[in-house]
């Protein structure tokens, strides 16, 4: 079947099997390998992307379900001139990644934590991150990064 998806602002189409998952559409058809796969039970969140602005685990969404909708992946966050998004910058400045495997998912879920909360505290950030696993950082610096991004992005408003 044919799906048409706006990915990171660009119109993309592909022919896929009905059972194809969104994560495979992104990785295999569109070559967007920034979105990772860490499990087979929708437990790890490494595959998190934004679907119409809301974070979803792309291993639990069929490619067909994304038809006609907008998907944002980690590749779509930095601006065209290569400047990192303030959230990406906060991750770097706070050393919120080590191996980087969970990172695309962590960044994407944090995008929606930021969008969904006018104010943020540590407990809210931790709850928001619950569905995303990181084996390297112990979360300490990820939490710090999200709070720092909120502060910076809030200041921009």
């Amino acid at each position: 079947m044919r799906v048409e998806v706006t990915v990171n602002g660009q119109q993309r189409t592909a022919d896929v099997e009905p059972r194809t998952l969104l994560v495979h559409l992104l990785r295999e058809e569109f070559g967007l390998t920034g979105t990772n796969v860490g499990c087979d039970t929708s437990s790890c969140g490494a595959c998190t992307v934004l679907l119409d602005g809301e974070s979803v685990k792309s291993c639990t969404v069929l490619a067909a379900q994304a038809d006609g909708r907008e998907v944002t992946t980690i590749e779509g966050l930095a601006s065209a001139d290569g400047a990192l998004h303030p959230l990406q910058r906060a991750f770097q400045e706070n050393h919120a990644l080590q191996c980087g495997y969970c990172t695309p998912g962590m960044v994407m879920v944090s995008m929606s934590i930021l969008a969904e909360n006018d104010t943020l505290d540590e407990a809210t950030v931790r709850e928001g991150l619950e569905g995303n696993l990181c084996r390297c950082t112990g979360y300490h610096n990820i939490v710090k990064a999200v709070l720092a991004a909120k502060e910076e992005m809030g200041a921009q408003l």
Partner: protein
Amino acid sequence: MTMTDPTQQEHIIGKRRVRREDPKLLSGENRFADDLVVPGALHLVLVRSPHAHARIRRIDVGAAQSMPGVVGVYTAQDLQAEWAGPMPCAWPVTPDMKSPTHYPLAGEFVHYAGEGVAAVVARSQVEAVDAAGAVIVEYEELAPVLDLEDAVRDAALAHEELESNASFVWTLEPNSEAVDAAFRDAAVTISERYVQQRLIPAAMEPRAMVVVPSPMGGDFTVYSSTQIPHVLRVMLALTAGIPETKLRVVAPSVGGGFGSKLDVYAEELLCLALARRLRQPVRFTEERGEGTMATIHGRGQVQYMELAADADGKVRGIRVKLLADMGAYLQLVTPGVPLLGAFLYHGVYDVGAYSFTCTGLFTNKTPTDAYRGAGRPEATYAIERAMDSLARKLEMDPAELRRRNFIAAEKFPYESVAGLVFDSGSYQENLTKALDAADYGQLRAEQQQRRAAGSPRRLGIGVSCYVEMCGLAPSRVLASLNYGAGGWEAATVRILPTSKVQVVTGTAPHGQGHETSWSMIVADKLGISPDDVEVLHSDTSIAPYGMDTYGSRSLSVGGTAVYLATERVIEKAMKIAAHQMEVAEEDLEYVGAAFRVKGSPEQQLPLAAIAFEAFTAHNLPDGVEPNLEASISWDPPNFTFPNGTHIAVVEVDEETGRVELVRYIAVDDCGNQINPLIVEGQIHGGITQGVAQALYEEALYDGSGQLLNASLADYLVPSACEVPSFELASTVTPSPTNPLGVKGVGEAGTIGSAPAVINAVVDALSDLGITNCPMPATPERVYQLIQQAKSE
């Protein structure tokens, strides 16, 4: 090269610096092994045994072979001719160690659930998976050996042909008479049994690999999510019978390892052999649900720990007996893991009498191997739990008991009873600092208040002091332990014609940030910006020599090699500078990226000019070769001994048994710090992995040897909600073992944390008469302990 005014030259080492690795990882630009696009690559899927122990009666591949897209289906027999030898174990710890023959696919018997019995190769992953489902295997089930205390009795055998489940018995008895005397004369003794449950490493990136052959050229490139590209190349060459010169191993971005990618795996060998046979690229990516069985596990020990002490709490003797679970086969360093702890069961305490025995046992479970800390978390757990028991028995504060027994700061370098020389440390200072940071007195007062008020939210405070050995390792010491390789590390530093610097390291980072840290070491020494230093690694065609990354060795061994290579480059440049400036070398000094005449700093030649001279070679002194490059292989003279004190504060809900970790204070001495930002990150992650062992994780098997929690839905890797933010501080006693004064920090957090947390849990419940709590301290378990204690 950015020139800096020498007088304003800033130190780079020791300053927080954000990582250069991050922009690629933060934008999806980097490539993990499964991200690599290889045209024409075939997909390997394994048919795995559902049984822990069975005889294979029959394998029927007929139906599978004729399925769409299938290129071939192979059994052990079909592939036997591919192997020059069995899968390697590089650490035969005793001369009479028993090791079952281990090939990438099981032959007549399977010995653990998850072991591969057939290999399916197809054009697509989906076709390979479908065909694997059509392979028919008939098994005759055999009794599995699952429990260590059963295994040691040999009632059933994990491997019939070995006639015993014991692989080896390894002892360290420097003074057995003194041990006997200590226990005979002791005012008080402690005798406890602890269980180090099996853990699943669960690096977030599942293992993945692709082997690209060049059939006409006869060579192979192996891309694998491995911690050990160099060791892997040697082992693949030996096992598959391919000349090393025809093998290039590349570890692309690697998504965490923690020891689980410090191995030579069946799938790597299968991809290689099948790529050779089929003359096409072959790739494999594990599913999480198979990785939990097919990738090594960690820990798996039963520890019998005894202390003999005086009435005032001074520990006189320690006796340790271990049963260590090897799992079904010996992987790369499986038997050596308990040995890495063998020297450390007296912890940070000055103890005169010591005895250690370990029996390595086979079971019908996934093979074990090094997992973050490897042997040292187990040792630390045993001594720190036992010290708390001793404190309770003597009705002494656990912190005070530790104080009385510490190796005193003035005793360093300290020759331990087990034969090590501890480099440096200030254990009292660690403890004092941690107690102050925790406000220990206040916590104890609050604990008393809650107890007096009968609060169901019980407060527990757990102290753990640790020392570990890392910086693996002096090669001669490794030889004395029968380890099959050296412990050196290699580095090359070259200054290119445009004066940019290229560093080649034999370490293989997978999250540790070596590119950033090594660039800081070189830039600091050369007086240039780290941005002008490029760090290359993890590709055997670029970095031919290396011993890779594990055991917190990379900085103290690999970083030191980088530092020393930089020094050599400066020495060479100094010769050229002296020649150019027509002065004696002794009259020159190197400051701020320039050679200048001592006493008349205006007479100077920048390093950039020398680099270009070395390139053109138009005017070099006699006997000096062109190019500005130095290579070094450095073998450390000793291990390094990071140490610290960790304090966990928990609340135990008496009504539900739930344990909440409310505060965590860690004071660590990893020697000099190159980049404190990275040091802290390593400690955060390390602590979380130890907390995970203490409270959440355990590989659970049923009576038939099935892994019950093979998915991340069932195996509880902690999320952000299960840990607090951490309160870190440090002490610094530079290690005299290396010129950087560094010790290593990759495993420290994991080593210190599990005993701190369990000590806190037991402390919360001690007024109920509870003295022990097995790991993980799940709500069910804790609830039962409480109920049991109350009914007694």
